[in-house]
């Protein structure tokens, strides 16, 4: 009987040791991941604006068609439509179209979430961050009809502009751009 207990005790101890080793390895690996991650995002430049600083992106008068998309990494429908904006930016570059992705992520998560996201998804469109807590003062300046939900998108060329508080498919985006091109 005593022997049995002893054997069980020994087995249990070994079991625990084994488990501990595994955990240690796991911790080391995750540390490495964090480290490489950190190195990567150092290359990600992020311009951060309050609304006054950001406003110029909504009012350029250079005959270019600007597609300004308000999004955030935590907003699922925004993330879903990002590839369409990326594709639009790539496909219509030669036709004088530029996509600007305006992140409304929380400032304390720029390093932890936004920059790694930009890196991981390899976003080619210009990404800027808008950090201005006094939303009631600036939301109506983007568009009077905007209730404040995202995704939301402004498409403009000089003084001609359209506002959309909705999600887009690539086809829908293309259709809108074609209106501006014609």
């Amino acid at each position, binding site marked *: 009987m005593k022997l049995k207990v002893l054997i069980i005790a020994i087995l249990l101890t070994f079991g625990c040791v084994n488990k501990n080793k595994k955990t240690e390895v796991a911790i080391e690996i995750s540390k490495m991941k964090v480290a490489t991650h950190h190195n990567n995002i150092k290359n990600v430049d992020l311009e951060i604006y309050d609304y006054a600083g950001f406003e110029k992106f909504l009012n350029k008068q250079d005959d270019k068609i600007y597609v300004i998309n308000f999004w955030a990494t*935590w*907003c*699922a*429908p925004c993330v879903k439509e990002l590839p369409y904006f990326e594709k639009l930016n790539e496909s219509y570059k030669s036709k004088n179209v530029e996509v600007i992705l305006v992140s*409304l992520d*929380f*400032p304390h998560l720029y390093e932890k979430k936004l920059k790694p996201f930009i890196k991981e998804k390899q976003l080619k469109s210009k990404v800027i961050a808008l950090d201005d*807590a*006094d*939303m*009631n*003062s600036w*939301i*109506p300046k983007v568009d009077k*009809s*905007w*209730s*404040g*939900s*995202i*995704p939301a998108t402004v498409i403009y060329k000089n003084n001609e502009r359209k506002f959309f*508080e909705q999600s887009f498919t690539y086809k829908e985006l293309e259709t809108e751009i074609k209106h501006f091109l014609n």
Partner: protein
Amino acid sequence: MKKTIKLISVLTIVICVSAFTIVNSNPSNGYKIGDVAEDFLLKNIDGNMVALSDYKDVKGFIITFTCNTCPYAVMYEDRIIDLNNKYASKGYPVIAIMPNDTDIKPGDNFQAMKARAESKGFTFPYLIDEAQSVYPKFGATKTPHIFILQKTLKGNVVKYIGAIDDNYKDASAVNTKYAENAINALLEGKEVKQTETKAIGCSIKA
């Protein structure tokens, strides 16, 4: 037999047409300031059904469309609790309504709502808009989205629509408490000065 077929086809048409109407109802066409809000009957996390007409001795309501999964809504949770603690006794209780489609946002399902309310210690009803029929009437588009109603002889009149305050990030850095200002004005028998405000929020998932 013919009658039955007729009845079925009529029913089918009615169902199709009504389905179409629901899809087309634009949420931005909801209540405006001064409109009378219809009563609703929604399930609370305790399993009971809640209607505005259940509240006999109130002066109005702070209807708050909110959810578990939207970071803005989460940032305002404590402030929503504070609003209820401050104003329920003065006649303006908070009624929270979760409007999202829980197939799209499982983190907002009934069980998750219960768990969230318990862990945060919600002191007010947290209702689920299961049929997603109430939030379009209000014209709620996002979470959080606040509607302050005043109970009058003609019904519950919409007096304020919008945000709780002007700083989502930091409750201590708030300059204007929009919702409190509105309720305070109503309690003093005055007109609400700022009746509508805008804030970023998560679009309601339908």
